[in-house]
C-alpha cells in the first residue's frame, strides 16, 4: 500500500491535538486524511472491497445467514465465476463478468447483532480498517437507518438490505443510501384491495403492534390503507418486542367487537403471536356474523416455516418469492439452489439485487466515486431482477416495483413451498409521492464522497 502522504512527525500532531482548541483554523494536516484520494477508500490496487454487514447472531440470524449466501453468490457472478445467475437476465448489460471496472471483487463480513451500535461499529471498522467502498446488508430497519447515516458521514455508498420501515427512505433518507426492498406503505397499498375482495369492506380490525419504529410505521400504513377501503379500526395495542407469550394480548380481542386481527409482528414475535391466536381459537371463531380473520402484513418464508400449520390461508405481503415464474427469478433460484441445495429467501434476493445494482452503477458511471454512483442509480430503470420493471426514484432512493400479496399455502409440497402468490400488485398501485405524509420530514441532502 502506498498511503504515504506527508512525512510529518508524531510530535507536531500531538502538539496540534493539545492546542487544538486555540487553533480555530483547521491545520491542513488534519483535513488531509486522504489527500492522495479523491474520495473515501478509492480502490488503487487490483481489487475492490465490499462490506457485507449482516446479523450473524440475534433474532434475525437466519435471515443474515441467507443474505451472506446470496452475497457470496453475487460476488462469484460479478467476478465471472458460476453460471452468472441474474446477470444474464438483468436489463443492463454493463457488467462483463470481470469484476467491477476490471477490479476483482473481494469482501469482508461483519455481525450487526441486530443492534444499532454493533452495526455501526462493524461498518466503521469495514470502512476504516478494511477500506470498504460500499456497505450493504441488514435485516432490520434500526441498524439500516443507523448504518445509512454513518455511510453518509463517511462518504461511502450504503445499499440497504431487508428493511421495511418507511423511515429508511422517509424521514431518515440519505443521499448515499439506497433501498431495493419494499416498505410499509407498499404493503398497505397492496394488501388493502386483496383484503377487500376476500373479506369485504365492512370489517372491524384490531391491531397488535410490535413496540418499535417498524411496528409504528407499518401499523399506520396498514390502518390508513384499510380505512380507505371502509374498514373500521377497533383498537391498536402495542406489544413488547420478544414477549414470547402473547396470550394476555390475544385474550381481549374476541370481546372487543373486532372480526379481524392484524399482527404487526416480524420474525419470532410473529410466530409466537400467531400461534397464540390460533390456540385461542380465533380462526374458528365468529364475530359480527362473519368468520374471524387474521392478517400478517409482512411475510417471509423463514417465518412461515416457524409458524408451520398456523400460517395456512393467512394473507400477507412479501418482496419476492422463489416460485415466481419470470426468467430472472428462475435464474436466481436455479443458481442459488445449485450452490446451496435449497431456494433463496426474500432477504437473500434483495441483497443479491443490491450488489448487482451497485456493481452495475459503478460500471455505468465509470468510477467508484459515490457521487458518480448516486447519479447512475438515480432514476435508473431496469428489469430482469425478479420484480418486473423497476425504478430507483431519485427523490428518495426507493425502488418502485411490483409487490406480492401471498397466502399461507394449504397443501405445501415441500418445506420451502409454504407461500402461495395471490396477486402481483403492479408498481403503479403502490407508488406514492415522495413527500407523502408517512414519509415526510426527511431530506436526502447532497451526496458525500468523503475524503
Amino acid at each position, binding site marked *: 500500500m502506498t*498511503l504515504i502522504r506527508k512525512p510529518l512527525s508524531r510530535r507536531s500532531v500531538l502538539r496540534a491535538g493539545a492546542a487544538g482548541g486555540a*487553533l480555530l483554523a483547521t491545520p491542513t494536516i488534519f483535513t488531509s486524511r486522504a489527500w492522495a484520494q479523491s474520495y473515501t477508500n478509492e480502490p488503487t490496487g487490483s481489487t475492490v472491497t465490499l462490506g457485507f454487514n449482516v446479523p450473524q447472531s440475534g433474532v434475525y*440470524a437466519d435471515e443474515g445467514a441467507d443474505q451472506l449466501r446470496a452475497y457470496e453468490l453475487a460476488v462469484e457472478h460479478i467476478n465471472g465465476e458460476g453460471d452468472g445467475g441474474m446477470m444474464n437476465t438483468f436489463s443492463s448489460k454493463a457488467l462483463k463478468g470481470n469484476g467491477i471496472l476490471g477490479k476483482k471483487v473481494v469482501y469482508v463480513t*461483519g455481525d450487526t447483532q441486530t443492534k444499532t451500535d454493533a452495526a455501526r461499529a462493524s461498518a466503521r471498522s469495514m470502512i476504516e*480498517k478494511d477500506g470498504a467502498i460500499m456497505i450493504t446488508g441488514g435485516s432490520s430497519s*434500526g441498524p439500516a437507518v443507523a448504518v445509512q447515516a454513518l455511510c*453518509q458521514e463517511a462518504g461511502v455508498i450504503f445499499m440497504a438490505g431487508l428493511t421495511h420501515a418507511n423511515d429508511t427512505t422517509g424521514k*431518515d433518507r440519505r443521499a448515499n443510501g439506497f433501498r431495493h426492498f419494499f416498505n410499509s406503505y407498499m404493503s398497505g397499498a397492496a394488501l388493502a384491495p386483496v383484503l377487500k375482495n376476500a373479506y369485504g369492506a365492512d370489517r372491524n380490525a384490531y391491531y397488535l403492534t410490535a413496540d418499535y419504529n417498524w411496528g409504528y410505521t407499518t401499523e399506520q400504513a396498514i390502518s390508513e390503507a384499510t380505512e380507505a377501503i371502509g374498514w373500521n379500526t377497533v383498537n391498536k395495542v402495542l406489544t413488547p418486542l420478544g414477549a414470547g407469550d402473547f396470550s394476555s394480548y390475544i385474550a381481549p380481542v374476541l370481546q372487543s367487537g373486532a372480526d379481524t386481527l392484524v399482527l404487526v409482528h416480524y420474525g419470532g414475535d410473529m410466530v409466537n403471536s400467531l400461534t397464540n391466536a390460533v390456540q385461542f381459537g380465533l380462526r374458528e371463531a365468529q364475530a359480527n356474523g362473519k368468520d374471524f380473520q387474521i392478517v400478517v402484513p409482512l411475510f417471509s418464508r423463514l417465518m412461515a416455516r416457524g409458524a408451520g400449520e398456523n400460517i395456512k390461508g393467512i394473507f400477507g405481503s412479501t418482496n419476492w418469492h422463489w416460485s415466481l415464474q419470470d426468467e430472472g427469478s428462475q435464474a436466481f433460484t436455479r443458481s442459488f439452489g445449485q450452490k446451496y441445495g435449497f431456494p433463496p429467501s426474500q432477504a437473500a434476493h434483495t441483497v443479491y439485487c443490491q450488489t448487482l445494482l451497485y456493481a452495475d452503477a459503478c460500471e455505468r458511471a465509470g468510477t467508484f466515486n459515490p457521487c458518480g454512483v448516486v447519479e447512475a442509480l438515480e432514476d435508473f430503470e431496469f428489469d430482469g431482477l425478479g420484480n418486473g420493471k423497476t425504478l430507483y426514484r431519485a427523490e428518495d432512493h426507493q425502488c418502485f416495483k411490483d409487490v406480492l400479496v401471498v397466502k399461507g399455502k394449504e397443501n405445501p409440497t415441500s418445506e420451502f413451498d409454504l407461500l402461495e402468490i395471490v396477486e402481483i400488485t403492479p408498481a403503479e398501485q403502490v407508488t406514492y409521492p415522495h413527500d407523502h405524509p408517512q414519509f415526510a420530514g426527511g431530506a436526502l441532502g447532497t451526496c458525500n464522497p468523503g475524503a
Partner: protein
Amino acid sequence: MLGLNKKDTGLFLFVLALIVFAPFILNPFPESSDLARFNAGYPDLMQRFVIFGIFAIGFNILFGLTGYLSFGHAAFLGVGSYAGVWMMKLLTVNIVPALIAAIVVAGIFSLVIGYICLRRSGIYFSILTLAFAQMSFALAYSVLTPITAGETGLQLSLADPRILEAANASGTIPAANFFGLEMRSGFDWAVGDWVFTFNFGYYLCAVFMLIAFYISIRIFRSPFGMMLRAVKSNQQRMGYTGLNSKPYMLAAFVISGMYAGLAGGLMVAVDPLAGADRMFWTASGEVVLMTILGGVGTLLGPVLGAGMIKYFENIFSRLNESDLNALFGFLPDFIQAPLVTVAQMFVGDGWLMTLGLMFMLIVIFLPGGLLEGVQRLGALVSRKKKTNEPSQPAAAPAE
C-alpha cells in the same frame, strides 16, 4: 509529580506512553501479511478502547473500592449519550456542550437512582440497579420514542435547529468537531509495509481518559478513598463507630455515574448516534466483565479488561472461514481442514464463546485478573534474575 507518589507517577507515565504510542502498538503487523487482520489500530477501535477504559475506570471506583456491584451502569452511559446527541442537535455540533451535558445529566440521573438503590446492599442493590437500567432501556426503546428515536437510535439530521451555528445550506450535516477540528480528521503514516493511523478523535478521547485516570488515582489515594475501602471491609462496623457511610457511598455512585456519562458523551462525539442497545443489561454486564477480567480494585486493571473485551468483540467476531484458511494456509491440507473447522467455532459469531472461556480461565486461575497475571510474570522474571546472580548476599527474610 502532580501530587502523586513515585509508584503512581510511574503508572501514570506508563498509561500515558501506552496511549500516545497506541497507533504503533496496535498495528504490529505489516499490511500485506495475513496477520494484518489482527491489527487493531484503526480509529473506531482505538476510540472504543479509551472510551470503554473511562467507563471501566469509573465503574471500578464504585465496585473496586466499595464492593457495591452495580448491574445497571450502562444506563448512565446511555443517558449521557442521549444528552450529548440532543446538545448537538439543539445547540452546536461542537462537542463541548455535548460532553458537559452528558456528564451533568448522567450525574443527576445517578444521584436519583443511587439515592434509592443505596438503601439496600449486596445482591439487593445489584438487582435494584439492574431493574432501573432495564426500565431505562425499555423507556428508551419504545415509550420515549419521540425523545430517543427508539430502536433506530437518535441521530443528527439536516433539519436540526443547531441555534449556536450559522445557517448551513450545503445539504450536508456538519461533522462533530472540537472548535473546528473534526473528530474524523487524521492521517495515515506509512513506514515500509506498516501503516499507522493517527486520528484526532482518538487523541481527544485519550486526553479525557488520562484526566479520568489521574482523578481515579487521586481518589484511590485520598482519605475519601480510604473511607470507601472501609465500607467494603465492614460497613456495619463503620456504622457502630458513629460514621454515616451513606454520603460517601452516594458520592462514589454519582462520581462513577458521571464517568459513565462522560464515556457516553465521548461515544456520541466520535460517532453521533445514541442507540437504546447501549443501555441493555448485557452492556451493564460487559463493564462488570471488563473490571473483573482486568482486576477489581486495581488502577490499571479495568483499562486492560476494557481493551481486551473490545479487541475480541471487534477483531475475533469478524474473522470468517476464508480468513482462517488464509491464516492456516501454510499447513498441509489434511491438518488445515480440521483445524479450520475447529477454529471456526471460536471466531465469527463464536467470539462470545472464546470470551467466555477466557473469562472462566482467568477467574479460576488468576482471581486478581489480568493484572495479577502480569505481576506473576514479573515475579517470575525477577526471581530468575536473582538466581542468575549468585554473588548477591542471601538477604531473604526467614518466612
